[in-house]
């Protein structure tokens, strides 16, 4: 479509997500409503008819697993190349590694952990319409739902909810300032020359860079080549391009077309209107200056254009890049953003696979999911939770606000709240877990209680 190539950065085994991820389950394969998170991106791209993909995975093992899964699941739907890159090369490094595969005019780069219903086609179209060197998808920073973990976290959350500081022009199409990472917590420093060029700049803290970018390929490759210290697209490449947009230093070949774009016009237009103010009072100067005006290539104030596509508030957009996000997204996908899951919900607003077995007096509330082959004993209660395949759950078990992956055994009398339980975990009798993450294959001995702890096999 439209001569776009798509690169999906699927990550590797992010340490941030330990103990949820492991060698067996790289980040891309973490389940969201019982299917790998990567499938959400792939299907989103497919829906925009973007079917030629390069999926970049950190680490050979992880790449093999991801590749295996993709070829199984999407064999005749998508044309996917999986590329393995060393770990910790960063997103910029990952792109460097696959740069030689890129041939199209524009490249769409999507993070593999994105769960969203914003059409990538809209980002690509904005990019094309403005002739931008980069267009980024901005979405409203999630106001994470009222978690039952208590109000003490409330204050932290207010602080946390700031992901980026973004500067936009009055039409909200040009991206004029962006602060990412550690800069976000610092004072805002806006370049005066950019402000002067637009006159008015809107600074917002409620938007988040969703890590979906359309890049002009030549520019991207140039930047990656020239700036070998750049590590991350979000924190290095994008801010760099935004920062230098009024005095582009990217080699001209990539930019000849861009020069005449509207942003170029913004500054030169201002310039001309300003000049015309002086036309009456100093006509000679006006003529001379016009002759000097930045049209000739040597004198050109070379500019490039950075754009933003702001997803409307009703769209869902989240990245699975923390344990909190993992829980939130799982909850949302069977809850308020249920259209993303691709499942059809029952009249009780939940999904119980026909092959699942429920004991007597066991209730599964709305916004829950119980996958195939799972069994539950008597008098259990499941609220706002997801339970994977082939789990065996005893009697008198309460599961609230939790994610239980596949092949988990939970014995009688357990209480699981706000927790994530990975595959093959065994909870013995009367275990109480609150806000815990249990790594794959772990055995929790009977009667133990844990609160806010990650547990994993050594």
């Amino acid at each position, binding site marked *: 479509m439209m001569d776009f190539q798509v690169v999906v950065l699927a990550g590797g085994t992010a340490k941030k997500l330990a103990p949820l991820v492991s060698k067996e389950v790289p980040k891309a394969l973490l389940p969201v409503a019982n299917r790998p998170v990567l499938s959400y991106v792939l299907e989103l791209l497919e829906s925009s008819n973007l079917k030629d993909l390069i999926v970049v995975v950190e680490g050979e093992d992880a790449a093999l697993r991801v590749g295996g899964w993709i070829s199984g699941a999407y064999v005749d739907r998508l044309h996917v190349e999986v590329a393995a890159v060393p770990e910790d090369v960063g997103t910029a490094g990952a792109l460097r590694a696959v740069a030689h595969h890129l041939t199209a005019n524009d490249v769409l780069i999507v993070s593999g952990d994105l769960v969203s219903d914003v059409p990538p086609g809209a980002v690509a179209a904005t990019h094309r319409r403005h002739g931008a060197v980069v267009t980024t998808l901005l979405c409203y920073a999630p106001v994470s739902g009222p978690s039952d973990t208590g109000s003490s976290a409330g204050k932290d959350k207010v602080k946390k909810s700031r992901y980026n500081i973004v500067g936009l022009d009055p039409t909200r199409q040009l991206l004029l300032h962006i602060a990412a990472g550690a800069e976000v917590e610092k004072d*805002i*420093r806006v370049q005066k020359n950019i402000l002067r060029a637009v006159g*008015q700049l809107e*600074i917002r803290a409620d938007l988040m860079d969703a890590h979906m970018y359309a890049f002009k390929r030549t520019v991207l490759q140039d930047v990656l080549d020239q700036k070998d210290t750049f590590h991350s697209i979000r924190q290095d490449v994008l801010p760099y391009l935004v920062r*230098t947009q009024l*005095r582009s*230093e990217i080699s001209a070949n990539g930019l000849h077309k861009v020069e005449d774009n509207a942003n170029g016009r913004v500054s030169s237009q201002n*310039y001309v209107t300003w000049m015309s103010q002086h036309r009456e*009072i*100093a006509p000679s100067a006006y003529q001379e200056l016009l002759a000097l005006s930045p049209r000739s290539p040597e004198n050109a104030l070379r500019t490039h254009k950075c754009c933003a596509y702001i997803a409307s508030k009703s769209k869902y957009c989240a990245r699975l890049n923390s344990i909190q996000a993992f829980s939130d997204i799982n909850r949302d996908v069977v809850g308020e953003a249920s259209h993303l899951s691709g499942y059809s919900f029952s009249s009780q607003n939940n999904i119980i696979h026909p092959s699942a077995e429920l004991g007597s007096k066991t209730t599964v509330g709305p916004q829950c999911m119980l996958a195939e082959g799972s069994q539950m004993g008597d008098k259990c209660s499941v609220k706002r939770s997801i339970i994977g395949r082939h789990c065996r759950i005893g009697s008198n078990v309460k599961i609230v606000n939790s994610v239980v992956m596949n092949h988990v055994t939970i014995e009688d009398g357990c209480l699981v709240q706000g927790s994530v339980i990975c595959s093959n975990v065994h909870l013995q009798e009367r275990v109480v877990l609150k806000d815990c993450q249990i790594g794959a294959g772990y055995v929790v001995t009977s009667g133990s209680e844990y609160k806010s702890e990650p547990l994993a096999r050594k």
Partner: protein
Amino acid sequence: MAQKKGHRSLSSDDPEELARVPLQAVLLADSFATKFRPITLERPKVLLPLVNAPMIDYTLAWLESVGVEEAFVFCCAHSQQVKDYLNKSQWMKQPGTFTVQPIESHDSISAGDALRVIYNLGVICGDFVLVSGDTISNMSLKEALQEHKERRKKDPLAVMTMVIKHSKPSSLTHQTRLGNDEILMAIDPDTKELLYYEDKTDQSQRFITLDKMLLASTPTLHLHNDKQDCYIDICSPEVLSLFTDNFDYQHLRRHFVKGLLVDDLMGYKIFTHEIHSSYAARIDNFRSYDTISKDIIQRWTYPMVPDVQYFGNCSQMKLDRLGIYKAPEVDQSRTAQIRAFSLIGNGTAIGDHSVISNSVIGQSCTIGRNVSIQGSYIWDNVIIEDDCKLSHALVCDGVHLRAGVVLEPGVILSFKVEVGQKIVIPAYSKVSLLPQPSKQDSDEELEYADANSGVVESPSITSIANTRNVDPVPDSPDAEHSDTSEVGISGVGYIWSTTEGGHEEEWRHSIAPIPAEKLMEFCLSAHTDLGVSNQDVNSLPASGELQLDSESTGFDDGEDYKDSADFEKEVEATFQRVLAGVNPENVILEINSLRLSYDMSHADCAGSLFYSIMKSALSAPFSSNLSFGNLI
């Protein structure tokens, strides 16, 4: 504050009761600046004619039109003149709801002092409009007042509403068409609260730094450099008490507004009201005098235009085609031409073949033959003899230009100056009968019109008047300016040296258009600037990317980067001295102290030392056998 409370307690909180507080205004009839010198040495700025009516009349007429009932005119410099004028004017006489009361003070040196005086008088009892006497506007205050009042009801800390207007500064000279410097403002788009205000921007600063806390309460803010401050403020009585509490507040914007914005302890808030279609501007300098005069002639300020009698201004002006205003009794030669956008005052005579364009000519002037007047402002009773050429000049009352005088752009001739035959007054000169005050007066701190000069001035006028037509003025203080030959034989006046305020900046605030060369210069520098800034940018990302791991570097990376380069150079130079034979012990000490003073780590130090060693090893192989190992 106290008296406000008293008032409130009397009137209870009934809104209708509150509404009965008469709308008051404080008009500062002193700019507390010296931008209109030398003219303001003899006459206060507010009485200077703007399209043939004193500025203060425009302001008072506007105040009356917006429903102000009581206006307090604060006079300081030349207070007597202002008071005399008001007494004679119709403002004091007219019956009706609008009363004007002069307040006199002699020791106020700033707007802050003025407001403190007014506070002490205790005359303000409610929200008031604060303007200076050089404000021209036709805006309606209704909406702004309403907004202000409603905000006050909800939030008593909202003490001030500032009126702003769209005006994009030039991207080259960074000044607006009024000649003001660009202003950077941050405004909350929903509440219109002013969050940040910066005038006098430092051009060397590439960045605007906004406190991160600004975004704590609101997710969005708008950063503007395309707004102009109209210097019309709606203030609550607290503003006065704030000035009294903070006795160091002098300037309304630089101290008061910034002080409130910075101070988050008290939490006072300032809001903005943007006007779109109406006119509001303040005459701050000669360029704004020029711009606003043109706006008046071109009727942007309607109804405050010369042919409408909104105050007892002048005799009936008649508007012809092309924006030419003529008083009824103009003695114009048949061959004289008056071109577009000009105004000719009553009783003025214009000789043969003279051409007047884009200019304002006052009353009872005599203009000879073949005179060319372009873009100039000529006040009353001016005599211009034959063959003079004036372009973009300001000529005050009673000036006499003898035949063949040429005034280059930007010339200011103060009252009663006489210029001898065929003299060319160079561009941007300011000529006055009064000698330039000695240098210490022009100190930044004393930028306001000092009351003293007003006192001293009258004797000096007479003394010079006595010596009129004597070739060299005898009592001149400064040899440089002593020779009146500068203004010609039989000329009278001193040419002020332009060092005051910096010659550099003279063109910015002058009546004359910005010269072509200047624009070229800016244009070119914008390009060369490009090269420089590119380097800047190069250095930024290089370290900018490190931000994650090194918190401390943060935004000053650019500097740090430079620092480390400096450091390397220093180390290298120091190291070279070992090779030159200095005791290595001393050099170790020096390098260590260098490291401390640049705040570098051991690794940095070792790195740059290693670099120096390698460099010297490469440049001078086998030349020395010193052991460097012990250096580190």
